[in-house]
């Protein structure tokens, strides 16, 4: 079997390709971007399937669902908060079900390396009541992605695979197998897919009826491993996903490791959990993310005669990413000896805007325009320009979720904040900025929206964008913004004074203005040159 070097994200993607994938959709977001990056490269080479960067996660989800409706195997991938954007079709797709196999890849970011929260996608698996996978390593990521398509078609349901940053962005060698052929076209049945109450009620009962069989699927899965230690029954471990690796690392030199259950599929394999819990007195639950398993294990009343340890009670921190060191400590093992710290105070090195970045010039102009203005609020958004929060710019006052810059500025303006300014990138604007701007234009809200058009989705590595250049200006006008208050600037040092004046004028105008700052991302320029 050939061995290939793959990122965790890429292992999932290749597993899907080898399962007969026909169509894949995504919106970029760390740590999930490399799933579709890989598929785009593969599709360009093989021309065997479709791989598309969508406008946002909701459209991506629905596009993939449409391919499943058509009987084909499809994939959608996004970062954990992307699943919030796609939550509407996600929840309803558990009711319609899947026709062709449908894999949903959601990459969580415990520790918030590049995210605004550390929500745990396993709650969505439980919420929608569908099967879920949580790989521990690259080989599993590949094997589970392949298997997930069969499971999806067996249950007629989407299957979610939960990744975490450390697996998404770790590389290792994976053994691959021959690809399966793609499905033929075969439309879904109308009575399943038209979610009128009369159909939806029946489909929901079907979903509930499948639950016991799904638990059996989990109990029989080869990815869940139960090992009981008969000599020491005082203590055992339940470990899921990447946490399983840290557990095995910590006990690698034990002749016989403590009893453990590796959990890799959802719903929880109840029978295996009962066996482990019955065997030991105390159970340590190791999971990266929320205490999802621990909370279910304890319930409201705990387990009589047993001690459950984890994030809720016990030795693991409730927030942040797990590490081998944290798990080692939780298992009561001595830390390894290490070199003492140098004693020299180490200056931090936070991320920053690139040298020559157009956003830097845009923020300088905005800061100058707002100099001496009291009460100004700058609502920002998700992208490289969020770094405008850091010195030397200190230019923004909020960053919440995709598109919130415009809607929050509207709300703040409605209740009297002046001036209310939004700062949003072109890709984020296409993702979730159009709809709030449509509403603000209808009301001619007193606010100034600055769209930073750098012609790419920069933070995640330069994926395509759909609202850029002349098309962006037409979009803004088409949404109903008055033409005389759609202004264009080129954020360059030589235009600084002119740009400051334009921003000042539009802030002074007590209605809706849109200032589009047009200059290409320097990273993208560099890529084109080399």
């Amino acid at each position: 079997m050939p061995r290939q070097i793959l990122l965790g994200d890429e292992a999932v993607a290749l597993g899907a390709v080898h399962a007969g994938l026909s169509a894949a959709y995504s919106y970029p977001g760390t740590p999930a971007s490399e799933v579709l990056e890989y598929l785009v490269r593969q599709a360009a080479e093989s021309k065997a399937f479709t791989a598309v960067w969508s406008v946002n996660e909701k459209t991506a989800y629905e596009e993939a669902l449409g391919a499943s409706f058509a009987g084909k195997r499809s994939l959608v991938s996004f970062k954990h908060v992307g699943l919030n954007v796609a939550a509407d079709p996600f929840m309803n797709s558990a009711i319609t079900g899947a026709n062709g196999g449908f894999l949903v890849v959601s990459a969580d970011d415990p520790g918030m390396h590049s995210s605004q929260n550390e929500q745990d996608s396993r709650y969505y698996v439980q919420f929608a009541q569908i099967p879920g996978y949580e790989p521990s390593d690259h080989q599993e990521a590949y094997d589970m992605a392949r298997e997930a398509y069969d499971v999806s078609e067996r249950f007629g349901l989407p299957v979610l695979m939960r990744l975490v940053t450390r697996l998404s962005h770790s590389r290792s060698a994976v053994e691959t197998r021959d690809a399966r052929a793609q499905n033929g076209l075969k439309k879904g049945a109308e009575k399943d897919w038209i979610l009128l109450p009369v159909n939806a009620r029946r489909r929901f009962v079907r979903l509930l009826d499948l639950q016991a069989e799904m638990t059996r699927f989990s109990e029989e899965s080869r990815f869940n491993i139960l090992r009981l230690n008969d000599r020491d029954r005082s203590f055992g471990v339940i470990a899921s996903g990447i946490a399983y690796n840290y557990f095995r690392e910590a006990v690698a030199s034990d002749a016989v490791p403590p009893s453990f259950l590796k959990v890799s599929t959802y719903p929880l394999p109840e029978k295996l959990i009962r066996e482990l819990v019955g065997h030991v007195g105390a159970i340590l639950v190791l999971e990266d993310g929320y205490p999802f398993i621990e909370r279910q294990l304890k319930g409201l009343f705990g387990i009589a005669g047993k001690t459950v340890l984890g994030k809720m009670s016990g030795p693991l921190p409730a927030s942040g990413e797990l590490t081998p060191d944290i798990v080692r400590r939780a298992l009561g093992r001595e830390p390894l000896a290490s070199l003492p710290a140098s004693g020299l105070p180490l200056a931090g090195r936070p991320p920053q805007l690139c040298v020559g970045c157009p956003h830097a010039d845009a923020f300088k102009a905005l800061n100058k325009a707002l100099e001496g203005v009291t009460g100004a609020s700058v609502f920002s958004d998700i992208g490289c320009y969020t770094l405008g929060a850091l010195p030397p710019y200190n230019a923004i006052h909020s960053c919440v979720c995709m598109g919130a810059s415009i809607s929050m500025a509207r709300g703040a303006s409605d209740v009297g904040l002046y001036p209310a300014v939004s700062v949003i990138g072109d890709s984020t604007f296409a993702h979730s900025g159009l709809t709030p701007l449509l509403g603000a234009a209808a009301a001619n809200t007193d606010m100034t929206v600055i769209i930073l058009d750098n012609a790419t989705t920069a933070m995640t590595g330069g994926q395509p964008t759909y609202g850029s250049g002349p098309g962006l200006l037409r979009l803004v006008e088409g949404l109903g913004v008055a033409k005389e208050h759609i202004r264009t600037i080129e954020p360059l040092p030589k235009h600084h004074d002119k740009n400051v004046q334009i921003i000042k004028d539009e802030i002074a105008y007590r209605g809706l203005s849109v200032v589009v700052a047009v200059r290409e991302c320097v990273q993208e320029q560099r890529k084109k040159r080399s």
Partner: protein
Amino acid sequence: MKQDIILAGVGGQGILSIAYVIDNAALADGLFFKQAEVHGMAQRGGAVQSHMRLSDGTIWSDLIPKGGADMILSVEPLEALRYFDYLKPDGIVVTSSTPFRNIPDYPEVDKVLEAIRKAPRSVIVDSEKLAKEAGTVKAQNIVLLGAASSFLILKPESLLKTIDDLFRGRGTPVLEANLKAFDLGKSAALGS
């Protein structure tokens, strides 16, 4: 046989290329490996590190525990110092002496180098000078890889073959500069 390495540097300095070469050499040598890296926001001029684990047996964790690293391999001196608590008491530090100053409070370089020399084993090479000598200042990462190569459990020919694969497509001058950068780094480390 196993070896755990912390790769360190600043976003954009090419530590992922070092990782790429080591990954492929490990595959060629029939070793297991796991290599955890940083993408996204931190790549924008911030401190970046990669955990590189090599072994002839099963590797569990993608991350190296503190006190578990056999080597810190850094393209930048301050960044080498940042991960000292990951190093085994007898571990080795291989680092560039060339500072990357994109922060206002960068400490005095001499003090940084002095602190690095407190490690029981350290190899400090002037990667900027050697890369320029090789033909391109961009090859500082490969200078460092060369400097580390004598201490790695990988076959030198596997490393060189991957460097060849990596740079061949970018033209003969780039390839030759990088091969020379590797050699200069290797010689400098052995002579230090």
